[in-house]
């Protein structure tokens, strides 16, 4: 397919002068052509260069990435009407740069902060006032309609977010999710902070996806700085990413069990989550893998004794996990009756919303970055295509359970002996001028992607972060349609999306 977009490879440097500079109309037309041919949005963002605001989009089709830019108009006809996955990105651009997408179906603020251009606010908010400001919730009228507002402060120890349910009796008609309570200005910080701090900032974008974000940053920096990593580093990074997946999937399976008041698996999984985190602790001294991945490689090697230790512990955990999964998903009918047919998102809806990661795979979209855009060791691992088709809580739990066993096997296959990696250079990598790189990884929630643009002096011009939650929150709303309100916690946990990864 020939388009005006440039085909690029992930985690490879691209000279920014080669990226097509289209007129907005042409940009929009070409983008729509790609998304109509099963293309999906990876990034769509604005940035400022030489006092002018520009737009850039990174789209993906099967095994291919496409990029193009254009000069940003004052306002433009919204693309969300034709391609729903642009929805959040357009709102984000409107909030960050004050560019209005005309005819956007639900133009609301994303994170509640003023735009960086001193333009008039698209949402008419007065930012000297407290959150949540001027937010017009979706409302349903009628005798028997009642609204339930949950959050932003929750009963459990979880992140803040506001959920607004429009219900008729116990049935949910519509769920609106309003986030932004954890906005820390991550992207701005990444563009202005001392370059030495960047890897540490990336690790803290979302604490439960430490490795996912750190890896994306490392790969983007390495691409633009022209650094090579050795094979040992690749293996250890792969192991770390899989351990992160293991810990989170295990914890969530336990929480799902706890939400239906079935305690044994909840307790076992809670313990095993700790065991998986302790494996990360063994490798790098931090349970969440902080301080492990740096641009240029990894900071810790795996010696012979640790290798043996990891193999032993993983072998034990694998058997225990198989038993718990059997107890939770197969041999307890009362659990199955709760999980099955609960919170269904059909494949058509999932495609329409552009769901990624386990949530997408549960609805029949087999997209997995590890297979489609492999990084590190994934190219050699032969990741199989895997998807469930029912799109309910059971499917999401099943996908996660299958991935737990798969991840243990991946790690065991990589632990063949001591894995040595050369030391990471302490110096801050020198970035090439006028370069562009996009990195993608399959973190446990799905596609994490970072985009790095440098200016003519080799400084960071724009650093764009996208957590998979940015795609998936609307999937949760969809799952709740016509579902009992008492099943919300169960559905929420089956997605378990990130608040801080979204809020940035």
């Amino acid at each position: 397919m020939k388009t005006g977009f440039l085909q690029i490879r992930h985690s490879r440097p691209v000279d920014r002068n080669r990226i097509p500079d289209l007129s907005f109309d042409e940009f929009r037309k070409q983008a729509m052509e790609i998304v109509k041919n099963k293309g999906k949005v990876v990034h769509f963002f604005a940035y400022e260069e030489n006092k002018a605001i520009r737009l850039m989009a990174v789209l993906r089709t099967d095994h291919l990435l496409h990029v193009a830019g254009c000069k940003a108009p004052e306002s433009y006809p919204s693309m969300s009407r034709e391609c729903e996955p642009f929805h959040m990105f357009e709102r984000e651009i409107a909030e960050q740069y004050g560019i209005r997408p005309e005819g956007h179906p639900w133009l609301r603020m994303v994170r509640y902060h003023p735009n960086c251009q001193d333009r008039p606010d698209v949402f008419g908010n007065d930012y000297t006032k407290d959150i949540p400001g001027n937010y017009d919730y979706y409302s349903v009228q009628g005798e028997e309609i009642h609204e339930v507002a949950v959050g932003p402060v929750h009963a459990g120890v979880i992140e803040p977010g506001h959920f607004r349910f429009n219900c008729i009796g116990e049935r949910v008609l519509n769920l609106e999710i309003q986030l932004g309570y954890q906005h820390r200005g991550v992207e701005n910080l990444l563009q202005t902070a001392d370059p030495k701090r960047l890897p540490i900032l990336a690790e803290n974008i979302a604490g439960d996806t430490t490795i996912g974000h750190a890896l994306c940053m490392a790969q983007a920096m390495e691409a633009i700085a022209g650094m090579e990593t050795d094979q040992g580093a690749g293996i250890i990074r792969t192991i770390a990413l899989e351990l992160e997946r293991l810990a989170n999937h295990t914890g969530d399976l336990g929480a799902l069990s706890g939400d239906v008041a079935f305690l044994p698996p909840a307790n076992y999984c809670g313990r095993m989550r700790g065991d998986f985190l302790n494996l990360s602790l063994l490798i790098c001294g931090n349970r969440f893998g902080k301080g492990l991945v740096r641009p240029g490689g990894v900071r810790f090697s795996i010696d012979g004794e640790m290798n043996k230790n990891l193999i032993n512990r993983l072998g034990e955990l694998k058997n225990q996990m198989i038993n718990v999964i059997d107890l939770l998903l197969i041999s307890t009918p009362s659990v199955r009756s709760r999980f099955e047919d609960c919170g269904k998102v059909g494949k058509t809806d999932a495609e329409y919303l552009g769901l990624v990661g386990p949530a997408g795979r549960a609805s029949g979209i087999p997209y997995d970055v590890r297979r489609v855009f492999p990084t590190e060791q994934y190219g050699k691992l032969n990741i199989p295509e895997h998807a469930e088709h029912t799109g309910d809580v059971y499917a999401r739990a099943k996908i996660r359970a299958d991935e737990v066993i798969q991840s243990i096997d991946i790690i065991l296959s990589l632990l063949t002996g001591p894995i040595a990696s050369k030391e990471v250079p302490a110096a801050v990598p020198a970035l090439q001028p006028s370069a562009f790189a996009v990195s993608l990884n399959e973190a446990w929630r799905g596609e994490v992607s970072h985009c790095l643009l440098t200016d003519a002096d080799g400084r960071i011009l724009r650093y764009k972060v996208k957590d998979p939650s940015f795609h998936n929150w609307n999937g949760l709303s969809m799952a709740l349609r016509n579902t009992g309100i008492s099943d919300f916690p169960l559905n929420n946990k089956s997605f378990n999306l990130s608040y801080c990864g979204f809020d940035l």
Partner: protein
Amino acid sequence: MESFILWIMAILLAPFFSGVILKVKAFFGGKKGPPVLINYYTLIKLFQKGSVYSTSTTVVFKLGPVVSLCAAVIALMFLPIAGRQPLLSFNGDVIFVLYLLGLGRFFTIAAAMDTASPFEGMGAAREAYFPIICEATMFMILVLFVKLTGSLSLSAYFAGSSPMEIWHAAGPQMVFVIIALFIVLLTENARVPVDDPATHLELTMIHEVMVLDHSGPDFALIELGAFYKLFFYATMVAGLVFPFDLGSPIAGFGLFWLSLLIIYKVVGVTESVMARYRMDLVPKFILTSFALAFFAAIITLEFIQ
């Protein structure tokens, strides 16, 4: 005097038995669990605290915990404990006691509605709906018992040798009645699979969500009321499952407390081996109890003349 001592013992020991459920659940979860006296510690802690009242609440809100506790305590006075005569008894006290507990529930619901919180309103709606079916079950069981004993008093069903006589008269039907009564016990006391007493998720709660706004001593009263209510139902189930009249009072007491412990443990095991039902399936589950009681009553009315 004996009845009074037994009533005092029930008042004092009910929190202990509820602690047993926690222990059983912890055992199934592979944990050590909280100490078996945890409920006493919690009560002491709560009584030492102050209460916080929302400015939007009225006197109804403060009345809720008191009335529900009193209802449960008075209900225990009519309950034959360990097969002995209760403190109070009159013909028709069964209906009085059932509606006394209903009064307690009414005030809990009214207190929940008083807070004007959407969560509590939701919980109140559920709490008002499910016990209606329980009431049908209880009256079906009552019809059966009246037929068998000719009396409308709890002491005629559970004191002395009467449980054994009921078994002799209608043994097979008793199995249905026990299962039905056990389902009512689970429903009335907000246990799994109807409700989850351990969850922190307001949207899924039934009973817990209604008492979210109560704090300190008020909450302690509610907890106490819940212990007594569970004790009330558990004693009835225990009386039917172990109807033996051993003659000697010591052996009788021993058997009673042991059987009570077993019933509580069965509740704990039930909670450990199954998940709770989806909210829209709960009424069907409770209706099962009505079907069983109805069946038992039909058989009895038809064949035992």
